[in-house]
Each structure stands twice: as structure tokens, then as C-alpha cells.
């Protein structure tokens, strides 16, 4: 299998969806991303990324859960696919390997 390539923001979104305790859809993903990163992010950026990830096969979605404040429109709930899970794990593995490769005292030397 081809190595997954994920951008930083895509990775964050994917992680947020994975971490979401309830079903993840546009609004709560957006809120979580802002909360977790402390950055101001537009809704359209979140939407774009979610759909891109779905197109790439990391996420899948179903429609459902219409509420009154949405004007009766359904939400699109995103869940991680197996591919998405593996991509996150791959990235995590790479990072772990690299973290372990850092000599023990190096950070202390730099930070002082």
C-alpha cells in the first residue's frame, strides 16, 4: 500500500474526528479544532478538509440527525475508515520512531 500522505491540518481534523466522543459532523469538529489548537479557523476550511478526506478514503459519511435549529437539514456524520485509522497509526509510528531517536539530553541542552 502506498504510504499515506497527510497535511498537518488534515491530520488534525482526522485526529479530532477520531477523538470526538459523540458523532462527528461539521460544527463540532470545527469547535473542537479551534479549542484544541487555539487557532481561529473558518468553517469552510473545516468543510473542505472533511470532504477531501472523504474523497481520499480516510473518512466515510452518512446523513442524519436533522434538528430544528438547522432548519430541518440533516448533518453529515463522519467516521474514520480503516484506511484512516491506518494512516493515523502510520504517522504516529513514524513520529514515535523519531521521538525515540532523539538523544536523551539534547532538548535539555538546547532549552537549557
Amino acid at each position, binding site marked *: 500500500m502506498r504510504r499515506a500522505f497527510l497535511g498537518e491540518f488534515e491530520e488534525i481534523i482526522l485526529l479530532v474526528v477520531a477523538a470526538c466522543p459523540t458523532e462527528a459532523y461539521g*460544527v463540532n469538529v*470545527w469547535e473542537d479544532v479551534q479549542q484544541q489548537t487555539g487557532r481561529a479557523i473558518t468553517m469552510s476550511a473545516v468543510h473542505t478538509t472533511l470532504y477531501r478526506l472523504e474523497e481520499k478514503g480516510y473518512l466515510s459519511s452518512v446523513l442524519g440527525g436533522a434538528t430544528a435549529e438547522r*432548519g430541518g437539514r440533516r448533518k453529515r456524520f463522519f467516521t474514520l475508515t480503516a484506511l484512516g485509522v491506518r494512516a493515523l497509526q502510520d504517522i504516529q509510528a513514524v513520529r514515535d520512531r523519531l521521538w525515540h531517536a532523539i538523544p536523551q539530553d539534547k532538548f535539555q541542552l538546547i532549552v537549557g
Partner: protein
Amino acid sequence: MTNGTNPPHPNRRTAAPQWADRLLTWCCAPHLLEDVQGDLHEVFQKRLTQVGPAKARREFVVAVLYHLTPFFVRRKKTVLRPGQYPSPSSLNPDMLRNYITIALRTLAHNKAYSVINIVGLSIGLAAAMLIILYTKDEVSYDRFHANVPRLYRITSRELSSAGKVENRQGNTGLLQGPKFAASVPEIQSFVRYKEDRHDMKLGTDIVSQTVFVADTSFFSVFTFPLLSGNPRTALQQPHSVVISEEMAMKQFGTIDALGKTISFKLAFGNGEAFEPYTVMGVAQQTPLNSSIRFDVLMPMVVTAQEMTNPENWFNIFENTFVLLTPGANLQAVEAKMNQIYRADAASAIKMMAEKFSFKSKVEYALQPFTAMHLSQDLRADNGLVGGSNPLFSYILTGIALFILLIACINFVNLTVARSLKRAKEIGVRKVVGSGQLQLTVQFLGESFLLCFGAFVLALVLVQLVLPTFNLLANKSLALAYLFDARLVLGYVALFLLTGLLAGFYPALVLSRYNPVQTLYNRVSLSGKNYLQQSLVVVQFALASFLVIATLTIYSQFNYLTTKNLGYDDKDVVSIEKSGLTRREAKLLRDELLKNPNIVGVAPKNGGQWGTVAKVNGGTEINFTYETIDPTYLPLLKIPVRQGRNFSPDFPADSTQSVLVNERFVKQAGWKNPIGQPVDFWYNKGEKYTVVGVVKDHHFNGLSQEIGPQLFTTKPGNQYGKAFIKIRPNTASASLQHIERTFKRLFPINPYAFSFVDEDNLKRYEAEAKWKQIMLFGAILTIFISCIGLFGLATLSAERRTKEIGIRKVLGASVTSIIQLLSSDFLKLVVLSFVVAFPAAWYAMRQWLQNYPYRIDISVWTFVIAALLALLIAFATVSFQSIRTALTNPIRSLRSE
């Protein structure tokens, strides 16, 4: 989100901004819209409670705007999931192919109908195009000059002392041009232009050539390109000449004629000799739509003496054109011109009043150069050619519109009628999922396709008949004339309109019907169709109007050409010889009469003279002044009613006696005409006594009323031509003798002859043209109407196939069925007469008012027109009805 304090409710302040919401709905791709919009609304509601409506609304707008990126706007390519079906657009190539196949199949299935439909429309269009070409040519007359907006002709009007316009004059004399140009700064330059006839050597022959004389500025004022020679100097030297390409070819066999010489004899009389003129320029052939058309052009030579003689203000015989400076005020220029005239011509005006008791006031005015061609009271004459009656163009345009209207009506009518039969197709198409838009596109497209075919065919037709048409109309039109922005626009509009009207019914009305209706009810749409019926009435009204017009014009023409003119013009040859002296006339007669084929010779003045004299002591009478010879009246068999003819037995006749015609007597109010004096008061002592009264005869043709006429044999008046009566059926022998004699006696004069009766026929060329045009229009209109009627009859017969089958089974005869099918249409044709006859009667009466001698409109004209229309309509309809009536009922009833 649930928040008890501020529940969301649809309020203008607490609702998301509608425009932004709409924008999103419109822009965002459908597959993303629902959840994106939902998310935005959810956030908006949340923010409403957190930050208040104003900020929330602002944020909503911003969020929407952020969503207007290509990612959201781009529509998703439909990836069909199982259970989903494509809904292709109505312009999908497969569907287009289907439409074209069906269209062609429908055409091929009904060949007669298709041919009628397309050919009918294209004939109508072609006729309209031809006529538009013609009228456009008329309107484009003289417009090719670069200076056109600033070009004018000097004209004048005579005002009576009461200020009433008595006479308008398009011609001027030698003085007007130069005098006005010298003192009115706005007049940039002037050109005097006049026509002469001079003898010219052409090889060894001598021909009488029309020569035009103009000022040096001619080529700078007008746009007549020279092939060789300098336009500035070409007309500067007195003995120079500019000739046309054609004349150069005739004279020298090459257009490279610069510097060569041509011999002309300018002065009249026999003593003058030919003089050489040097070709200073060869001009491109003048366009046919030009009032100025010259083959030979010479510089105008005016002596200083002529220019200083103020009497020349009233000596009017030529056209003067002026070129104004840009932006000149016309009224101001005219006012200045009149000022100059009053100052400069003061002495001449006084002299005119004294000598001729000419008391009218003359005012000068300017006529736009391009207005001359179609002007009726200020005509293009005296060297200007082609003057035309705008009525021609109007009536032609009228006919063109008639024909076009009928053709379009037919096209629409037939297409609509045909489409009724296709209701079933529309039903089936709807059942298998066609939308209304799709049907509209299909049927409109089909009618546009047909229309397009007709247009192309029309262009081909125009190209084919153009040579014949040019011959008939005496024009040189080309199809390229049609490619004018406005005309093309007009045609495109016509195309769209016709296509739209024809396709409108099936495309917009039938396609709206519920498929169940059209499929189940077996087309109940064929009821009384008032639209179609009234269209038939209109067509036949137009056709019978034109038939009546044609018949009337034919009989008026016939009347004009066959009515007894009051004199005998059979076997009379007219020859011209300028300055024919009494001695020469006698010599000519003696020599000609040596041949037994020559019955008589009567000399007469050339052209037509008119003058004025006083009768009853003071009354002035204007009359035609004929200088004749005692043999003139007997030769033409013009009877003398009272008194006697001139006679050699009364030698004093030539100086004392005149003859007058009956009209003269009537106008003078004489009871006893014989012995009455006629006073030519402006020539001292010239007084005559009437010795005879001549019966009125149409010396000017029938389009003019007979006016007063006076005959004299005064020796001071020169003859200009001679009438020679020959024995019947000896034309060629006599003509040979006449020509030989003439050439022997007058070797240096050009010889030309004509038959008087043929000349008389030529007067009615305009009427002959009308006749042709009306006949052409009537035939086309009838033809196109018939095409339409035939199509409708076919459709009606088809529609009633089953009915006729049943009728036949129950015992109806062929005759009764033909009657059944034809009577409907014939009724409509009869109805059309009710409209057409009064209109035609009125129009023809108006037209005939133009002729002082005219026919009465006879009832027979209407009877014939009615019979003709009925006969043609019946023949057209019965062709189809007989066929239907003869069909075996088994065939029509068998199939369901």
C-alpha cells in the same frame, strides 16, 4: 443546542440573512448543500445566544462568503449509484440526434406537405428579398458621393403677390451658381451641369452624341473616380473632354485614351466644322444608381458678357449644385442667397415686370442632392437621369410585404395543422420522461430548421432570378446588396419570428397537455379553428385584391394604347434635323416624293414649344405653340372643325393667320372663334387672326389633358423635324429611300428615324412596368395562397378520413363528398371577397384619378376576379378531395 432563555424563532432580526442564505443555495453544489447549510445555520443559532443577532448575522455572511470557493461551487460529476438513473439534458447529443431523425422522418413521411411548406415560404421570402433589393437601390440613389450630406441643388419657387407658391423650379441659369458662391461664405464650391447634343465622329460615321457640360470643380465636388487624368485639371482647358470607359472603348478600343483626340461639332448649322477635343481623363463607368451619368463630359465655357447680363437670372436651363462647408446652417445660407439675388438682379426683375409683366416673386432654396431622385415637384431632369416615382417603391414594398405575410401565414398554418397530428408523439414522449423544456426545444428547433432551409432556398432562388429581374426593372442589382447590417438584422428578426410562430403551438401549447389527455382522447383538438380560417380569408382577400388591381391596370393600359388619339399615327415616320430651313424643307419634300411609296411630308418645329399670348384684349393664355406647314393637318388627318386650314392660296397666312384647337376656343370663351385676334404683345406688332379651329387631339398622349394649342406658319420659326407618311407595308423600302435622301441632302447631320405610333406607345412605359409588376405580384400571391389552401385541404381530408369512410359505407356519393370537403374552403374564399372588393374598388378609383382619360371600373372586373379566385381555389381543393372521395372505405376504416 438547547437554551431556554432564547428559543429560536423565525424573526427577521433573529433569522439568518436571507440573501446570504439564497446565495449559498444558488452557488453551493447540490450534493454539499444540505449539510453545509445546516452546519452554518446551527452555528448561527448558537452565536445568536452568545453574541447577539447583529454579530451572528455578520458572522453568518462571512462564513457564507468563505464557502464561495470553487471547491463548493463546482458541481459533482454524477457517479451513478445502483438504483439511480441519469437525467440527461435536452441538448444531450443523443437526444439531438433523435430530434433530427424524427424531424427528417416527419418531413419524409409527408413529402407533399414538406415541399409545399418549404417552397411556399422560400418563394415568399425570395420575392420579398428581390423587392427589398429594388427599393434599397432606389433609396441608395446618389448616395455614393463622399460629400453627400453637404451637396445641394439650387432650386427656386415663384410666389404670387399673395405669397402663394405658383411654381417650383429645379433648374437654374448661368448666374446663380457663381454669384451665390462668390458672396455666401458657406458655399464652398458650385458646379453647373447641363446636357447638350453634339455631332461626334466615331470612326467614319457621324453620330449625335449626348454631351454633358460642367464646371471645372465637377470632379472635386462629386465622387466620380478617374481611371487616368488629373481630376483637378481635367476640365480646365476649353478644348478638353473627359470620357467614360465605355466611350473610350468605343472610340479607341482601349481605355488608355489619355491625350488622344475626338472630333466634335459644337455649334448648330451647317457651316461649322468639326474640331478636335483632347481627352483629359477617362472616368470609371458611372454607377447605375446615379442621377448624373455621363459618357462625354466637357468644360463649361461661359463668356464674360453672358456673366454680366442680369437677364440671365431668368434664363433657366441647367442644374447648379453647391457644396456647403461642414456645419453650415441651411436656412441662413438660403436667406443669404435670396439677399444676393434681390440685390444683384434688381434691374432684371424690373425689366421682367415691364417686358413680360412677370410679377411673381422668385425665392431660391436648396434641395438635398439625394432628394432629387424621388422628388415629384423638383424632379431630376435636364441632364439628370433616372428620376423615379417613390410611389413605385411604396407599392412594391406593399406587395412584398403582402407576399411575405401570406407565405409566413401558410408556413405557420401548415406547421401548426401538422403538429396536431403529432399530439400522440408528444404524449408518448412525456410518458417516457420528456420534460416540457425538452419538447419545447425539440419543436422550436424543428421549425427553425425548416425555416432555415426555406431561407437558404430563398437565397438560391434570388440568385437565380436576379438576371431576369434586373432586365425587367432596368437595374443592376446584386445579392451583395442584401448584406447590409440593418437588412440582415431584419432578416434575422423575420427568421426568428416565423420560426417562433410556426413552432409556438406544438412547442408551447401541445407540450403542456397532460399526456393522458393526448393519448387517450385520440386528438380532440380538431374543432373549429378560427385562426386558420381567418388566415385563409386574409390570403384570398389579398389575392383577389391583386387580381382586381391587375385587371384594372390592364384595361387602363389597353385603353391608353388603343384609344383613338384624334390623329392618324399609322405609317408615319418622324425624322429630326435641327435648323431645317424652309428651303431645305421644300427640297426634302421634293426629293422624297420622287418615290411613290412616300405619300406626304410635313415639317414641324422640333421638340415642344409653349408660349403665351393675349386674347380678348387682355386675357393671357398659355398654349402649345406649333409651327407647321399647310400639309401638316391633312397628313395626320386632323380635321378642321370651323374655318379653313392654312393654304398657299392665302399668301398672307404666314404672317397674319393662326389656327387654334377647340380647347383654346373654350378657354378664350369665344362664341365665334373665326376672326378673333391673338396678340403676342411682347413682340411689337405681332398680331394674328384665327382662321380655323382644329379638332382637339391628344398631341401629348393620354396621361395629360389636352391643352390649348395654336398653329402658325410664321417664317421666323425654324422647323426641327418632319413627319413622312408612307404607303402601308412599305416600311423597309421607304425607310431606305428616306435615309438615302437625307444623307445626300444633309451629309453632316446625324440621321435617326422613329415611327410615330411606336413613339406614342413609349409614353406608356411606366404603365407597362406597372402592368408587369402587378401581374407578377398577383400570380405570386395566388400561387402562394393556393399552396396554403392545398396544404390545409390535405390536412382536413386526412383528418376526416374515417368520417368519409363511414359516409361512403352508408351510401354517400363521390360528388357529395367532394362537395362536403370543398364547400368549407369555398365559403372562406367567398368571405374574403367581402373584404377585398370594397378595398380594391377604392384603391383602383384612387389610382385612376391620376389619368385625365380613364376607364370606368366595371362590374365585370369583380365578377372575373371572383370567378377566377373561386375556380383556382376549387381546383386546388378538389384535387385533394377527389382523391379522398375515391378512396376505398375499407382502407380508411380498417386501421385503428
